[in-house]
């Protein structure tokens, strides 16, 4: 299912508190798609495409842009509801709190089915290894492959690097496989259809808040239904963890699965030539390189828009560096050999269990109504306009930089007088003449 660009604005997960906005330019300058404009001293409009990266909310120092806090009423237990926490949750409760304690804590909250994602991550990891091996044998297969896990990276590629879409392997992410597994298991057990099973994901990721984008067209087993932020259940879960009397084993993975969500965590389990890149601007820098045909010798690149990977997600509670320290400790404790049944996973892989039918092409590539010569003409006009601007890149005009102001002027959305330098210069010259 493709979506129109309009679905992205305003972003599905940020809320803007106009009273707090003092019209500074931080969010506008941070936006990677140059979508934000500030006019009349206020954040005014979202002009282009929002990819839900969260940079604006991360950068805002005035508290004017916030992630939407997800609702807790989704947390009512039901026999057909599966809770699937992101592995990041294992880093959020301090020392002496092992993955099993956290899963039991969720169970204690009343949820009958808690599905540990770390074990599934190890299976997906091995499937990925098989996929890489298979594709290295094909002469024209695109390399490096780019991880499908970060939803913002996938949207960024759709929007700014569409030629790289074929570098994203058609494999489902661990969170999708968790949904698939639990739908299958629980529907068989409860004697209902897979669609009747509800999957609630507990996530550090704000871009996953809107699952309509993610779970469309998943074939027989739809993806996740709902997501809540780790931050919205942290307090109540913490209380439940404290009262735990360990009786059941719910966690089965090694350190590889536990550490999957930190930067470098996904590739840690891959015995291939891999790279991990995190942080929006670093990711863009690498995508530019890949688009120029570089890094072909690398098998797989784990790209994450949040700094330090999913540990830096907006819905986390713990500081990302402390969280990383904790995860690394757990990785040492649980070891780095995947604890999976390799032959069984291989069989699943050969049966296509790990494939996704999802079309990742988020069609946000707005087809320009202008013909190519007209678009070139526009670019030339932009270039001429740009020569009249001072190149200070200050953003005071309300557009993120001089280049974008020039574009806005040519498109009739702004005037040259919006530039304070241009305006003063003209006034001065007018005064001299007059």
């Amino acid at each position, binding site marked *: 299912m493709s979506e129109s660009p309009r679905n992205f604005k305003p972003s599905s997960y940020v809320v803007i508190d106009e009273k707090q906005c003092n019209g500074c330019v931080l969010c506008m300058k941070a936006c990677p798609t140059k979508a934000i404009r500030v006019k009349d001293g206020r954040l005014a409009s979202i002009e282009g495409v929002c990819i839900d990266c969260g940079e604006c909310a991360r950068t805002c120092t005035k508290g004017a842009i916030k992630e939407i806090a997800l609702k807790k009423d989704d947390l009512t237990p039901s026999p057909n509801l599966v809770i699937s926490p992101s592995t990041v949750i294992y880093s959020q409760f301090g020392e002496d709190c092992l993955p099993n304690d956290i899963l039991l804590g969720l169970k204690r909250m009343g949820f009958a089915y808690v599905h540990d994602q770390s074990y599934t991550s190890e299976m997906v990891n091995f499937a990925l290894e098989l996929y890489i091996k298979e594709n290295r044998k094909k002469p024209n297969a695109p390399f490096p492959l780019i991880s499908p896990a970060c939803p913002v990276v996938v949207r960024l590629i759709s929007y700014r690097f*569409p030629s790289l879409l074929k570098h994203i392997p058609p494999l489902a992410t661990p969170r999708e496989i968790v949904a698939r597994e639990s739908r299958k298991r629980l529907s068989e057990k409860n004697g209902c259809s897979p669609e009747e099973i509800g999957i609630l994901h507990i996530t550090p990721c704000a871009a996953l808040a809107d699952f309509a984008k993610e779970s469309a067209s998943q074939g027989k087993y739809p993806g996740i239904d709902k997501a809540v932020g780790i931050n919205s259940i942290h307090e109540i879960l913490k209380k439940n963890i404290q009262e735990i009397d360990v009786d059941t084993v719910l966690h089965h993975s090694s350190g590889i699965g536990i550490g999957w969500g930190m930067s470098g965590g996904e590739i840690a389990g891959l015995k291939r030539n891999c790279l991990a890149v995190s942080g929006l601007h670093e990711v863009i820098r690498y995508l530019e390189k890949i688009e*120029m*045909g570089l890094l072909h010798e690398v098998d797989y690149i784990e790209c994450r828009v949040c700094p330090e990977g999913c540990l830096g997600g907006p819905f986390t509670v713990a500081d990302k560096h402390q969280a990383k320290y904790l995860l690394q400790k757990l990785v040492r404790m649980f070891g780095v050999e995947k604890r999976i049944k390799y032959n069984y996973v291989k069989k699943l892989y050969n049966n296509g269990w790990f494939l996704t039918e999802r079309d990742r092409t988020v069609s946000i590539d707005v087809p320009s109504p202008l013909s190519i010569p007209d678009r*070139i003409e526009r*670019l030339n006009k932009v270039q001429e306009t740009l020569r009249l601007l001072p190149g200070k890149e200050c953003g005071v005009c309300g557009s993120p930089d001089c280049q974008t102001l020039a574009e806005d002027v040519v498109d009739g959305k702004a005037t040259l007088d919006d530039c304070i330098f241009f305006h003063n210069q003209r006034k001065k010259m007018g005064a001299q003449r007059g």
Partner: protein
Amino acid sequence: MSLLKRSFEIKARDFIRAGEAAIEVQKILKNIGFDPEQIRRASICAYESEMNVVMHGGDGELVLTLDTEKIMLDINDQGSGIEDVDLALQEGYSTASQEDREMGFGAGMGLPNIKKNADFLEILSDKGAGAHLKIGINLRKE
């Protein structure tokens, strides 16, 4: 008739800024909104030829020209030139220095890669007199 012309300076041995001209070319093409595959091919050609100038070329210039038919890249440099063009077009053949190789360049894939991605390639060069590459990418799909 050319609809757009932009030139970018390339500095020899400046590995810090190397690749910037290619990124600018990529940005312009994206801004206009060409087909992603054509942009990819043009970017690869721009990058590889820019790196050639940085490594072997002395200072040079990359000129991007657009008309309704094709994307043209002209790369001129004042370097040592290419002694044997046929040899240079072979994969793996390189005259890059040890230093270049240690930085991860000079694998001998530059010109072969350009040839693979361009619809049109002309190399004008004499030993000692610099090199001039003319690269074309057709906008119409055959």
